[in-house]
């Protein structure tokens, strides 16, 4: 499956996370190339997801799907019965997870990643070399990140999650994604969702840290009157790299899509965000909107944005917008009047990201993950403040 031959035990995923329509290649915005660990599983039987998950379009593309399936121990299938309102979140515990939300049911799916890998009830799914846990024999943990343009050739371990969700008619699905690793981690997260008639899917993503975060999400609104809402909040700092690909296929009639992306970039962070709303022929009456706000705090930042609308239908409305810039002089002035220096004002925007993430965290484990990251980014004092502000007791969340 790999085209090139990198170091033994690893493969290169060439030009993955690609959007349906691309721009000039020389802009280097269309895709990302990743070097990932690869252990041969010859002779093993893979206990895969039910067939209906096969062929589902996932955000990072088929190459990543194939790779995850080749490396995962086994797939994890969860079903929520028709009409069931499941309150306990489904926390993703396998690299390869399929969730079936039957007609009229409601469920919350949580994908959280910290330094130990993809989190679930304190159990690490993908172990880095240092903690040599259950999957170590697969050689997953060690890999060199030698992707193009990467100056820092430090050894990055890789974690990954592939999650496919089917929302049957009238289902309600909430997806929460948290990436809170440190700069020794390369994290790959590919999500695919299909929504049948009147299903409502909302996704909240918090990409708050990792040497490389490559995340793709594709939602296909197949049935009529389906709705999709996506809020993506990201933070890029130091030498972190973010590569995000969002795709919504609007196929059914009268669909609604609302995508809001916003983030803060500092240091030498590099970010590429691609968001595509595809109004497929037959999606008449549909409306799709996409908006991104980026706050750039350093001249060394590389911020790439590609908001795409594809339209093959006339009775539709599509719009997108993006604003990229620094904290405006007016805002700085206002905040200065309230006693904040420019640095403090900028820090406020970063803190706001964590505030939101902590509030959104559905379980103590996930909250601890976010707080641990907050501690390393904002310092223990601010992290403690976050906790106290929320009326939670555990400071950095280790014991949560």
């Amino acid at each position: 499956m790999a085209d090139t031959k990198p170091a033994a035990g690893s493969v290169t995923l060439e030009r993955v996370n690609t959007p349906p329509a691309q721009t000039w290649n020389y802009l280097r915005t269309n895709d990302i190339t990743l070097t990932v660990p690869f252990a041969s599983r010859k002779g093993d039987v893979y206990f895969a997801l039910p067939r209906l998950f096969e062929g589902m379009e996932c955000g990072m593309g088929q190459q990543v799907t194939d790779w995850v399936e080749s490396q995962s121990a086994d797939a994890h299938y969860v079903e929520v019965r028709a009409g069931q309102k499941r309150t306990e979140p489904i926390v993703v515990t396998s690299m390869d997870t399929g969730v079936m939300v039957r007609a009229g049911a409601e469920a919350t799916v949580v994908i959280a990643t910290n330094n130990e890998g993809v989190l679930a009830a304190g159990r690490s799914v993908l172990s880095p070399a240092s903690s040599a846990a259950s999957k170590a024999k697969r050689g997953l943990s060690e890999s060199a990140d030698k992707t193009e343009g990467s100056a820092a050739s430090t050894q990055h371990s890789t974690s990954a999650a592939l999650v496919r969700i089917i929302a049957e008619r009238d289902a309600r699905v909430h997806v929460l994604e948290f990436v809170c690793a440190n700069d020794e981690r390369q994290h790959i997260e590919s999500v695919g969702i299909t929504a049948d008639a009147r299903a409502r899917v909302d996704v909240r993503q918090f990409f708050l840290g990792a040497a490389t975060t490559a995340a793709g999400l594709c939602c296909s609104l197949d049935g009529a009157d389906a709705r999709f809402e996506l809020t993506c909040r990201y933070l890029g700092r130091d030498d972190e790299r973010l590569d995000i690909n969002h795709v919504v296929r609007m196929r059914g009639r009268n669909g609604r899509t609302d995508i809001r992306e916003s983030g803060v970039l500092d240091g030498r962070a590099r970010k590429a965000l691609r968001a595509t709303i595809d109004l497929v022929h037959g999606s008449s009456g549909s409306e799709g909107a996409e908006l991104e706000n980026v706050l750039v705090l350093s001249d060394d930042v590389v911020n790439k944005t590609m908001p795409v609308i594809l339209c093959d239908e006339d009775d539709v409305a599509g719009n997108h917008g993006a604003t990229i810039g620094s904290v405006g002089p007016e805002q700085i002035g206002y905040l200065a009047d309230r006693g904040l220096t420019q640095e403090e004002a900028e820090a406020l925007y970063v803190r706001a990201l964590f505030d939101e993430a902590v509030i959104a965290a559905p379980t103590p484990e996930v909250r601890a993950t976010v707080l641990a990251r907050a501690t390393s980014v904002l310092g223990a004092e601010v992290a403690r403040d976050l906790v106290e502000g929320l009326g939670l007791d555990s400071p950095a969340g280790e014991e949560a």
Partner: protein
Amino acid sequence: MSERTQKRSQVADVDRSLYDFTYSEEGYERYDDGLTPEIVRAISAKKDEPEWMLNMRLAALDTYHAKEMAPNWGPSIAGLDMDHISTYVSPRTNQAKNWDDVPDDIKNTFERLGIPEAERESLAGVGAQYDSEIVYHNMREDVAKSGVVYTTIEDALHDPEWEPVVRQYFGKLIPPADHKFAALHYAVWSGGSFVYVPAGVTVDYPLQSYFRLNAEGAGQFEHTLIIVEEGADLHFIEGCSAPKYYEANLHAGAVELFVKDGARLRYSTIENWSKNMYNLNTKRARVGADAKMEWVSGSFGSHVSYLYPTTILQGDRGQCEFTGITFAGATQDLDTGCKVILNGADTTASVDTKSISKDGGCNTFRSSVVVGRKAANARATVSCQSLMLDDISRSDTIPAMDVRNATANVGHEATIGRISDDTILYLMSRGCSEAEARTMVVGGFANPVSKELPLEYAVEMNNLIKLEMEGAIG
């Protein structure tokens, strides 16, 4: 040289009769189809070019053969077979300064397109190209006296005063290796314009070059080189059209614009190539400090277009304004847009584009806004509106932004939609037929572009819209 009769495959298409008329090219000089060093040498020899130009052509030909098209690009150009395109077709006539000296059939062509009339009324100078060669070139005397040069590149190359200038600028902004069709252009370029506006000179009336491709299965490869010196001001208009054939035609021109410090250049285009045309044109401007580049672009014709005028704001406080409209009707796949690179501090760019898709036509709008590290306080806004006139057409919007400066501010907005039923009802309830109502709304949609054009071109553009909307010229 191959000789052909023209009746065989011209497409009966009465609606476009204003543009769809052809004259026999019998007796013309037509080079063999395809691309060989011999053809390139023949073109160069015919033009009696300096050695450096021939070498540049031959090197470009190698580049052309070596380069591949990116596999993930928009509309297909599979219908384009260079082995069936003649790269050089010349009417056997010398360049005239007086319309009476132009052969009748060619003169009639331009009369019907309204060029001599526009020249009398509102232009400072006109160049008219027919197939591969400029057949008419003239400029008002007062403008010439101010030191403005408006001629062909071929003539400039034969002038000892201007040959070094051409050599200095030619191919510097769009290098032959830029992409496959840029290389092709440099191998076989012929005709086009050379304009030089001395420092501080304002040319009060526009200059216009009109490009007409009459021959079937041929290519037009004109090169436009404009240098607007410091503090000077020019409006240049480019028009293009061709009759419709079944066999593919190719337009691979190149436009290089040098806008020096404090200068202003407005470059307006009304492009109405026929629907068998592959319009793979490259346009680029480099803009100095405190200078301004204004693009006004109306794209109506061609089968497939790749057209993304590029502006490089190199100096501080440079400005770029891009106003464009693209109308894609049946069988058209138009991939258009623009690129702006902001390198200077306090530079500004504003891009405002409209697209209209109808009868199964495809529009792709692409843009790239790149803000360099040194472009402190750069400002860029991109606004893109697309109108869908039916459910079999297509409109894609693919903007890209790359920002590397913390003080820059870049905004983008795009909307896609159709004409609301309420609007149609309102206009119908005041007596407009549905077709008139739609034409009126589309005309209004295009208005921000047409109002940027000189009156007679705005009228031409509105006529083109009517033609596309109603199938007959009013």
